[in-house]
Structure formats: structure tokens, C-alpha cells
């Protein structure tokens, strides 16, 4: 699984961290997304998919 994020689209909602805290974090000052792990292990796949679906700005992209 390969994950990419679009910093420019991100609106700092935080739903990615809520769903997959091992894969995403937020910048301390403006809340924008920080990708911790672009190649998450298969056991995190469900959480990453949920994070992708929960992102209101469509700023997370997941490829198998």
C-alpha cells in the first residue's frame, strides 16, 4: 500500500490522525497533514482507508 498526501488541499480537520495515528500526524502550528509512513504495513490498511474516506478535503490518496 502506497500513501500520498496533498498539503495544499489539506484543511487540518484531523480525521486522518483520528483514524490512523501511526500513519498521519498534524503540523503543530497549522494542523496541516504530515505523512509519517508512505508505505504502511497491511495490518494498517483498514485504518488508512478509513482516514482516506474521512478526509473532507480529499487530500489523501491510497494505492494498493
Amino acid at each position: 500500500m502506497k500513501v500520498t498526501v496533498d498539503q495544499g488541499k489539506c484543511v487540518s480537520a484531523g480525521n486522518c490522525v483520528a483514524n490512523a495515528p501511526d500513519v498521519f500526524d498534524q503540523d503543530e502550528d497549522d494542523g496541516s497533514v504530515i505523512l509519517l509512513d508512505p508505505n504502511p504495513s497491511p495490518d494498517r490498511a483498514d485504518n488508512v482507508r478509513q482516514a482516506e474516506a474521512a478526509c473532507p478535503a480529499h487530500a489523501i490518496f491510497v494505492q494498493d
Partner: protein
Amino acid sequence: MTETLTDTVVPEYPMERSAACPFSPPPAELELTEVKPLSRVRIWDGSTPWLITGYETGRELFADSRVSVDDRKTGFPHWNEHMLSTVDKRPRSVFTSDAEEHTRFRRMLSKPFTFKRVEGLRSAIQKVTDECIDAVLAGPQPADLVTALALPVPTVVISEMLGVPYEDHEFFQETANAGLARYAAADAMQKGAMSLHQYLIDLVKQKQANPAEDAVSDLAERVTAGEISVKEAAQLGTGLLIAGHETTANMIGIGILALLENPEQADLLRNTDDPKVIANAVEELMRYLSIIQNGQRRIALDDIEIAGETIKAGEGIILDLAPENWDPAMFPQPDKLDLARENAGQQLGFGYGRHQCVGQQLARAEMQIVFHTLLRRIPTLKLAIPFDEVPFKHDRLAYGVYSLPCTW
């Protein structure tokens, strides 16, 4: 040309909820969804914007960059005449800007609301909640849980986040909540809003001189850096305050009522310690109650083909969260409060798209703590008046209850 043909059948908006089913979205909106997910409605100025009541269509339009919140554009479906007449007096804000300008405002506000910052606030939220419930248990019966719990918890939390000095808490709470009273006159509300705005201006200046670790200090820093004016900072701060406590307070009040009316669901929440179960319960309460009424207002910047219709450039769009959250195509048996509903997390109660609620993680934490703690600490809680005498806020932007007298 088609306009004149359909003029006679275009329904008026906003629509009314049914007194018999006060948790339900207006029945006329649910009937519209049965036919199609978007329909023309007539609003106060005689214009006929599109009302979106279907879940999928709503979600798509919320996320569409051709859908704008710029209320200066001709054809924007304003809430009322007051909003139209003051459109050029209000400074641009996170609510009325698109694209890069919006991102700039949004990121100024996001610092205190990140998931981790909110997680760090949980013990403080728990403490405020416990103190409120201690006071209820020590006081006379019946107790009004709106004034004793639903209002003070979010108000104290947002005051601390903004950095309102402790000695001003009382003034701040009174002023902030003055407009929420049932019979608040328009001039009293206006006066309350003015003094709150002036208070925030003074607070921004004070934080410029003596910064601390709080949201108003963050805004003050940007004023000092020349990024925004004092007035803009005060406007953003007021926005955080209003959005940050009135909405949550209403969700807590009407959420408690919904739990009291569904005792087997309340049991499910009371008897769990699993944070995921508690979190899902709050998502379902958000779906079931969708307290923001009268629709999120937008305007199309370009022609948009959607669900077999064309929304033309310059036409108004109203996204109504409550019927979208009761769309049976997405949520089967939407009239059933089911705290274990599998897809409750897909609810649109915080909106969707780039304007989705900036304070949603804080609101979630507050609701998760308050509902669970209340059910645990007062398991015999019950309504002290007949259900049909509960005063609902049909006339406010945020739906809820004016008071909730309870015994135990």
C-alpha cells in the same frame, strides 16, 4: 421559461419540523429526497435556489471546488435580509472565503484543534464535566441540564482554549450566552454581540503585550506580524467562540434527551468502556440529530451536472445536513437511533469538504466525555416533564432544547 411553469409548485424553504417527531428533519424535506436528491425551493427573497437533501449528492457538492461560499456574489442564497444588507460590512472570514484565502484563514485557526491537542485536553474536559455533575447531584430536583451541564462544559473549555482570563469567565459566559436565551430580543442580541466583539478586540491587544499558550495569543501574534488586523483577529476569535460552544451545547442538551427516549441505547453506551464504541455512539447521535438547520449556503461558480440535473453558474445551493443524514439510501432506517450503526462515522453533521467544522475533534471529545459520564454517574436520570412539553429550538440556527428539567 421553465421557471414560470414550475413557479406554482416550488415549495417554500426553510421547512418546519413536525411537532409529533421533534428529532426528525422536516417531513417535507424527506419527501423531496424520495423523488430526487436535489430540488428547487423558494426562499425569503423570492429566489429559487437548489436544496440538496440526498446524502451522496450533498457530499459531492460539499467537496466540489466549483461550489463557493462567497456571499458577495449575485445569486447567493442568503439566510435573511440582514445577512444580505451587511454583506459588504463584514470582514472576509473562514466562513466566506474560498480556495487559498480560505486555507490561509483556516490554518490560523487550526492550531488549538489538532487531534493531539484535543486529546491532551481530555482530562480537563473530564474535570469540568465531573464538577458540573457534582453540582447537579448536590442541588435541588428537578435540575435543568441545559444550564447545569450542556452550556457550562463547552463554555468553560472554549474560554480556556481562547485564553480568557479566569476573572472574566463570568462576564464572558453571560455575554456569550445572552443571545441564546429563548426570548432574547434582537437589540439585546446585537448589544451582546457588540460587547463580545469589543471584548475580543481588547483581549487581542492584551495578548499582543502579554502572550500566553492560547488561541487568542496565536491570533495576536499574527496581528503583530502584520498578517491580519486587530478587527479580523477579533472576528476570527468571536467565530471560534460562537461556533465552539453554542453548537456543542445544543448537541449535548438534545443528545441527552434522545438517550433518555431510547433507554436500551443509553444502556449500551453506559455499559461500555471501549473508546471506539463511545466514539461511534457520538457519530450516530450527530447523524440522528444534525442540529445545524436552515442549510449551508453556497453558490455555483460554473455549470455543474449532478444527479440528472444541471446547476447553472450563479445559482444558489443550499446543503441541508439533517435530511442528508436521514437519506435511507445511505443510512437504512434513518429514524432509528442505533448507536452501533456501522457507517455512522460517515455522517455529515460537521459538514464536509474544505469548510468542514474546524472544531470537530474538540466537539467529539466533549460529547464522548459528557454523555458517557452522565449516564454512568446518574443512571436513574429521567425527564421531569412530559416529552411533549420539552421546549425545542425550532426558531434557531442551531436546533436543540431551551431547557431539560430532569430528576433522578
